[in-house]
């Protein structure tokens, strides 16, 4: 609760500073973004936004982009894909922004990218990982995240190594969860695991009592939940009430937040989750440690991978603009396509379709109230544990 309170305050301050920013009459680069500052995606989206904001402050302090001051124009899409699309339309046609940054969530990005593609604005997607986004033959979109279908590679690799065999997947009927679940099926097969059942539940939080009792009857060794945070909390609460806990449990997004540990307390122990990144010194990429430090100083919060990807998207944009030597969007697009570099998030490299092929997600696990990196094995901060294995 405290954190959300602090969040709100921070937001207010930032929004104010934006509102009263004097409009510079001469040479400023306008960058537009509409993002979910309220609504369902509020928490991860705000992190992305703060990543953008940190970059804006830093780039302006270091003399701007090609010598011009950078100015972010920000709107709140209220977590509504249609509203977001129209906001981007407004940013491009009315506000005449030079460049855009991406919104958060797969579904919003899906609809927004239709607009940006139309106007040939390069879009560095810092908040989505549904492969379908890249299957439309678009030319100006670039992923920051490893794709959703790779989210659980690490988790499945680990449980296979430890001798587990039976897995159940549950996912919300939404773009991102569905594609993550598909990935689970694919990789389970690879690693010699057996997916007992894939349960798809309708959008909009249906309640999980029946789902949980069904899973219980299947008696799997591992359960993977692909859903947005509210559903994850809901599902785990239901499990707790039913006093059911599989030997291994993994879920998307929610476990990467600090709130996860606060909300669930000891029940968070042992939960696995995919993460694009962790605010941890074991992450070996250049600039990561400095970014963590700067972000904490800037916001008083520990960055999540969403913040890091937001910041990383800006880093890529900056690099591309610098190499292009102007804000010519066509040049920038081609520069991005050919980049093979490292950001705070990790390696950046896209294929012809703009799919991120440089970056791999990592797997974290909640151990003793902290998030530990358990995969890839090279970055391990702790060995995986299975507190629920005897039950």
């Amino acid at each position, binding site marked *: 609760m405290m954190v959300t309170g602090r969040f709100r305050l921070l937001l207010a301050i930032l929004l104010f500073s934006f509102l009263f920013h004097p409009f510079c009459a001469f040479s400023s680069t306008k960058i537009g973004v509409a993002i979910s500052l309220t609504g369902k995606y509020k928490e991860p989206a705000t992190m992305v936004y703060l990543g953008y904001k940190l970059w804006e402050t830093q780039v302006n302090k270091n003399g701007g982009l090609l010598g011009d001051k950078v100015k972010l124009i920000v709107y709140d899409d209220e977590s509504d894909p249609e509203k977001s699309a129209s906001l981007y339309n407004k940013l491009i046609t009315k506000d005449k922004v030079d460049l855009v940054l991406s919104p958060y969530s797969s579904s919003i990005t899906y609809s927004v990218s239709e607009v940006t593609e139309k106007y040939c604005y390069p879009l560095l997607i810092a908040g989505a990982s549904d492969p379908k986004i890249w299957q439309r033959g678009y030319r100006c979109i670039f992923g920051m995240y490893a794709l959703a279908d790779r989210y659980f590679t690490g988790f499945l690799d680990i449980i296979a*190594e430890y001798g587990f065999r039976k897995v159940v997947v549950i996912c919300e009927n939404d773009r991102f969860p569905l594609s993550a679940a598909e990935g689970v099926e694919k990789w389970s097969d690879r690693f010699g695991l057996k997916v007992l059942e894939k349960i798809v539940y309708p959008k909009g939080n249906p309640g999980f009592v029946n789902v949980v009792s069904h899973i219980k009857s299947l008696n799997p060794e591992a359960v993977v939940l692909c859903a947005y945070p509210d559903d994850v909390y809901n599902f785990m609460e239901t499990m707790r009430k039913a006093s059911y806990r599989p*030997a291994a449990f993994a879920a998307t997004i929610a476990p990467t937040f600090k709130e996860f540990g606060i909300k669930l307390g000891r029940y968070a122990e042992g939960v696995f989750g995919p993460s694009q990144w962790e605010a941890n010194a074991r992450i070996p990429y250049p600039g990561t440690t400095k970014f963590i430090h700067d972000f904490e100083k800037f916001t008083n919060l520990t960055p999540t991978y969403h913040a890091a990807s937001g910041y990383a998207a800006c880093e890529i944009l900056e690099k591309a603009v610098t190499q292009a030597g102007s804000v010519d969007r066509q040049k920038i697009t081609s520069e991005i396509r050919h980049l093979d570099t490292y950001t705070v998030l990790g390696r950046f490299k896209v294929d012809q379709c703009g799919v991120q092929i440089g970056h791999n997600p990592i797997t974290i696990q909640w151990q003793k109230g902290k998030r530990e990196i358990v995969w890839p094995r090279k970055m391990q901060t702790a060995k995986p544990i299975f507190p629920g*294995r005897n039950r």
Partner: protein
Amino acid sequence: MRKFRPKKGILYQLIITVAVVSIVAALLISQIVSRYIKNKYEEHFLGRAKDVLELCFTSCDDAFQFLLSERQEEHQQVVKAVKKDVLLRIKNLSKTRGDSVHTFVLDPMGRVLISSIPVGERIDVEYLSKNPTAGFSTYKKVRFRSETGRELIGFTRYFPGWRWELIAAVDVEKLVAISSPAQQIILLGFAIEVSIIFLAFVLIFSKRVYKPLKSLGNATEELKEGKYKQLNWNRADEIGLLANAFDLLSESLEQREKKLSETQRAVLESERRFRDVFENANDIIILLNGKGVIIDINKKVEDLLGISKREIVGKSLLDLMPKDSVSAGSALLARVIAEGKANNFEILLNRKNGKQVHFEASCKKYKDEKSDDASIICVLRDITEKKKIEKEIIATKNLLENIIENSVDALIILDSDGYIIRVNEKFKDISGYGATRIIGRHFTELLPDDIEVEPLIREIEEKGLLVEKELTAKISTGEYIPIELSAKRIYDANRDHHATIVVARDLREKKNLQDQLLRAQKMEAIGTLAGGIAHDFNNLLTAVKGFTQIMLLTVPEDSEDRQYLEQIEHAANRASDLTKQLLTFSRRVRSEKQPVELNREIREVEKLLQRTLPKMIRIQTHLTDKLTLINADPSQIEQILMNLAVNARDAMPEGGVLKIGSDVVYLDQEHCKRHLKLKPGEYVMLWVEDSGIGMKPETKDRIFDPFFTTKEVGKGTGLGLAMVYGIVESHDGHILCYSEEGKGTVFKIYFPSYRDIKKVGEKGGGEDKEEFPRGEGTILVIDDEESVRKLSVELLKNYGYKVVTARDGEEGIRIYRELQEEIDLVILDFIMPGMGGDKCLEKLIDINKDVKVILASGFAMNQSLRKLLENGAQGFISKPFSLKELLKIIKETLYDESPPGGKRAAYQ
């Protein structure tokens, strides 16, 4: 002499036991050691296998991560190349890393993909881990055979990326081959060692332990027969200690026997002596057993109880007691048994002739050495005589105690050095000192410092007593009180020590009443005398005055005699004043009594005093809010107040505080006892207090005397307080004065309260009204002097006016401009800083030409003032003004409709 020879020698027992134990231990230890060695080897090699397996796994993981990050994991050719590379690396690991560790990789179907030694196409592994359940460990211990039939043990680990089973194992036979020679060498060495130790042990044991033990045994046998022998071996070990102990034992036994026979003789001697003492003791000595039965008793019993020893022994002590004290007797016995002793216990025993004898018993319990029973020894002393005397003493003591405590006078007992050792209750009442506070102090502490004690002491020393000496004593409050003292010295039987009994009588009350009576009588006498003279004198004065006036009528205006006559008249008037005062004192003036509210009188007089007393004297009133109604002559009450106030003024030449107050009090019996004429009841009290010079006690005693004054001639007549006294007396009241030099004086006057009549109506008749005319309206007072402003507000408020004030001309103009409609009259000071009175008047007239202004000035009427009066002021009053004048001119000016210029003025 018997030889010390055991049936089964310790030497043989030990040899057999040690031999058996060492053989068994050697076997066991060698077994354990060889197994330990084998395990160590195995552990070492298995550890190596685990390390190699870890390396294999990391190779796979690295390759797989590479494929993942390059998105090549689906690309068949790339994957194949990478896998081949990895397999080769794993095979080489066996060579480079562990000479004896072999590596194998199996595909998901269990087929061998690669192996560092030939094992055929498949391997059948046997899992050795106890708990192969999921989630515990990724390593599993396995055993299998190679193609050549050699046994291998090691670990497997599952690599999920390609679903490979990775194995690292070591050759079991090779393990054994390495470990067995080491085992054999250790075993042989061990066997030799054990046999050498065994032989050495047997030899040493026989020489050092077995033989000495045997000779020690023989020596002990001899001891039994009374031969005290010394071994004198000088050995430092346990056997040596044993031999020394034996030597000591033999020596001490020898000595003990000698001592025993000596003691026996001494005991017999002592027994005889004690029996003598016992039999001839002056008290009864009884020996009882634990149950109180008499075992032994001395001859004294025959003298004291008349019973022979033979009759008594065997009886219980309780049998000797009268029936009603048996319980006390058994309590005594019980106590002795419980506590071990009891001292000075009183018991009663029967004489043979039936009489009873008082004894004081002291008993002690002691343990009999042979039997476990406790015995009691009791010494009984005859105290019949002592008892009788004791009773008498107590009775006498109680009597004396009563006499002392109930004495009407204070009693003090001093020791021979004059220190107080005893006081009674009355002493405490008088002095305020409790016994604990005073006992141990010297008696002179009770006397004033300036008293000469020497003569007193001498008198007592010479005569042995002191009779009814009047002295002053100092009591706990620090006060001095008059006492009457008698003392007598008393001696103990040898006349060595003495004490002094002092009887002190409080003379306060007596003295006080005596004084009062004297004073009353004196006043009465003076009163009669002065009254008589004054009366006659007054008549004479009337004549003098009358004739003088007649003469004045006849003597022409310009005659010189007229001057002399006027002086006679003046002197006569003064004399007549004096006689009037005297008459008042002697109560020859009739007082016109009526119900009077004292508080109101005080307030009236206070107003007067405010005006007349110098400013450096502050006047405060402390009036009770109770009804202070008394039956009195109001003018006389005023006289009282004025006189007291004037005296206070004279007592405070440097200024100070004059407080006047009232209260309603109830005086009880106790209070009245101390004052001659007072009766219990409710009184209204008037008090007047000043912070002046105060009085000496001698002065205070005489203040009410007529013509007593301390003031210089011409200043005081000394009749003021005499008059007050007379008035108070005629009101059945009572006057008290408290004064201390340098601190101030309080007069308290008690008037009987007039309770039956309700509050009196508005006092005063028409005359008053005329003198202090009331009115209404708002008056603006402009004056720079704050006291004047305050006074005006206070005074005028009481007479119906509303008052606004201004500090100077400017403020005055401002206020007038604002409140012009309300303000009916302006009193304007003529001389002020800033805008003066003249300027101010001009401005006021500018605002309103009909404004009514009274000018006030400390100067007499002069040219400039006159001009102002002509220019518009309606009146003039000179400062300081009296209330009466002020009210009068206000009234006149307010209700006079004549236009400006019709002037009036009041002159002081």
